[in-house]
């Protein structure tokens, strides 16, 4: 049984499912990275994802147009982000508490809309696996890396893009300044409020896509509370990844690979109780967080509202 764990089929299976499972975590955690780098902790990711998941499902279900579905999920995420930005930037509310409020709003609102507009569980169109000529046909690698739906590829492409924007552009510099020393940034003419609005709305948009990836790519249904904690794990992954896109990628992959490993461990009948197996990714996340917490310092102004002194 243990030796079967290292057979080629199983290895391919673990790696390929790990990549698929990482998709929603990547969107949500990259979006959260932008917000936190500019000084705003958004705990409402889960709620934004739920509304995004429902919006994407509903548009796909009623129109069959998958890209329109993603677009609407982005729009819904953006609106949630806008509301979050208003509450944290203009009203300067405590970020953790208001984030929880947004989570509860998303949880309730997505459920309510689902009940009123759809009623019962329905099947919608979903993004198919894409066969890329040549690349998908490479033995082993093709199956691991190039047998996924389009949203998975975009999620992975997002990592270098996010790294570039955060580290190599003026915008990235402004985000960094808003998160490290908003007073200094402000005196240099950077609109801290503007930057934070941008990052929170961007985070909302990406959370919307994260939700869409669950309801119209990973699966083809919407169900109440279907994000089941992914949004909160995504927030943890930002700390885990030291507020850097590549670190977040590492964390998302590690978490998802261990998650897919536990699915295989059970399928192969390795004698570990299922309760222990399903705990593995979470225990690992906590362990790594504990071990690495002092390694990188977070943005100095994280969770601190900024008020201009006129």
């Amino acid at each position, binding site marked *: 049984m243990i030796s079967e764990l290292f057979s080629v089929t199983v290895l391919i299976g673990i790696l390929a499912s790990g990549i698929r499972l990482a998709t929603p975590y990547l969107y949500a955690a990259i979006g959260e990275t932008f917000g936190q780098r500019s000084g705003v902790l958004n705990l409402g990711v889960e709620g934004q994802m739920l509304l995004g998941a429902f919006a994407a499902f509903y548009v796909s279900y009623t129109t069959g147009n998958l890209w329109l579905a993603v677009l609407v999920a982005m729009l819904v995420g953006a609106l949630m982000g806008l509301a979050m930005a208003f509450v944290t930037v203009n009203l300067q509310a405590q970020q953790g508490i208001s984030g929880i409020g947004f989570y509860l709003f998303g949880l309730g609102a997505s459920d309510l809309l689902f009940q009123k507009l759809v009623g019962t569980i329905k099947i919608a169109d979903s993004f198919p696996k894409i066969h890329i000529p040549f690349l998908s046909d490479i033995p082993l690698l093709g199956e691991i890396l190039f047998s996924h739906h389009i949203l998975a590829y975009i999620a992975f492409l997002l990592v270098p893009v996010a790294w570039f924007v955060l580290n190599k552009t003026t915008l990235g510099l402004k985000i960094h300044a808003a998160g490290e020393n908003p007073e200094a940034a402000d005196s240099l003419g950077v609109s801290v409020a503007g930057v934070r609005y941008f990052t929170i709305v961007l985070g909302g948009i990406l959370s919307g896509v994260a939700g869409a990836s*669950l309801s119209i790519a990973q*699966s083809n249904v919407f169900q109440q509370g279907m994000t089941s904690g992914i949004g909160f794990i995504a927030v943890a992954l930002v700390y885990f990844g030291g507020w850097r896109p590549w670190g977040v990628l590492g964390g998302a992959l590690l978490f998802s690979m261990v998650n897919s490993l536990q699915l295989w461990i059970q399928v192969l009948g390795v004698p570990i*109780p299922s*309760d222990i197996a399903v705990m593995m990714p979470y225990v690992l996340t906590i362990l790594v967080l504990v071990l690495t917490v002092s390694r990188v310092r977070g943005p100095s102004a994280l969770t601190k509202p900024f008020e201009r002194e006129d």
Partner: protein
Amino acid sequence: MKKAVRLFALFALFVLLVSACGSAGPAQMGTFRVAVVMPSAINDLAFSQSMYDALLRVQAEMGGPEKFEIVYSENMFVVDDAAAAIRDYATQGFDLVIAHGSQYGSSLQEIAPDFPETSFAWGTTLDTFGQPNIFAYEAAADEGGYVNGVLAASMTTSKVIGVVGPIETGDAKLYVDGFKAGVLATNPDITVNVNYIGSFSDVALAAEAANTHISAGADVLTGTAQMVVGAIGKAEEANALWFGTQSNQTSLAPKIVVASQVYHWEVVLNEMLDLIKGGTLGGKSFAINLANGGEVIEYNPAYTVPAEAQALAEEAIKGIKDGSIDPMK
């Protein structure tokens, strides 16, 4: 500023409440009033829906909402919230308050003695805590599971079958164990792979669990609890067959769903109602099974099941009914 946050939190709470509660109509004379608290939605095509549909069937038999009033709280996955709802319903004087979820047991044990005039029902379990006003009910999920297993075993060509479960306990474990027994009794050479994903709501992980089974060679899948709707989609993509349980899941994938074990709780509900009307408020436990008609194997009319497979299934049903087959052996 703080006020704004508080207002917002209140607003969010309000939305949540509106979405979580059914409507409570006014009580009328001569109306039997039932309240039910459920962990998921009334239309989850699984555990909660099986109870809600049964209540509706009882209502239709009794002559409509004027005679039999149903009020529900769905999505009560937080046990403390469920406990508050149960207590509220008891305070409002409902004739029967149903706690439809084994996780609500310890709350019910505390609440029931405070309302000796109210009848409570708790499932799925057979434990009434020895209290005179608690009925207990459960489903012999292993029986229908066994029949599904017999069908699955006679229809697999790859000789690998995958099972997606939530948490290894209660109704889910009964179903999975019965299913495995049914497969192995029909053909001991078949491999049955099981994974419990540790969640009742993680649809995407259930989908990935189905992918795992398919990669491991499975051409027939089954699963139990409300998150399996994610797995059914993946089975359909891979053109693998699906066996359902709790509710009829044919509508989710008419091409691949072969049969579903459907719960008809009205069998035990009717017994409870008769007892309550006679003045007995609890202290008894009930089980639905194949023999009493509380469990029915419903085939998908659009899917043609091979005659031999169906014959084997009928034989299994007969054997379980007359006691010559024990699904848990």
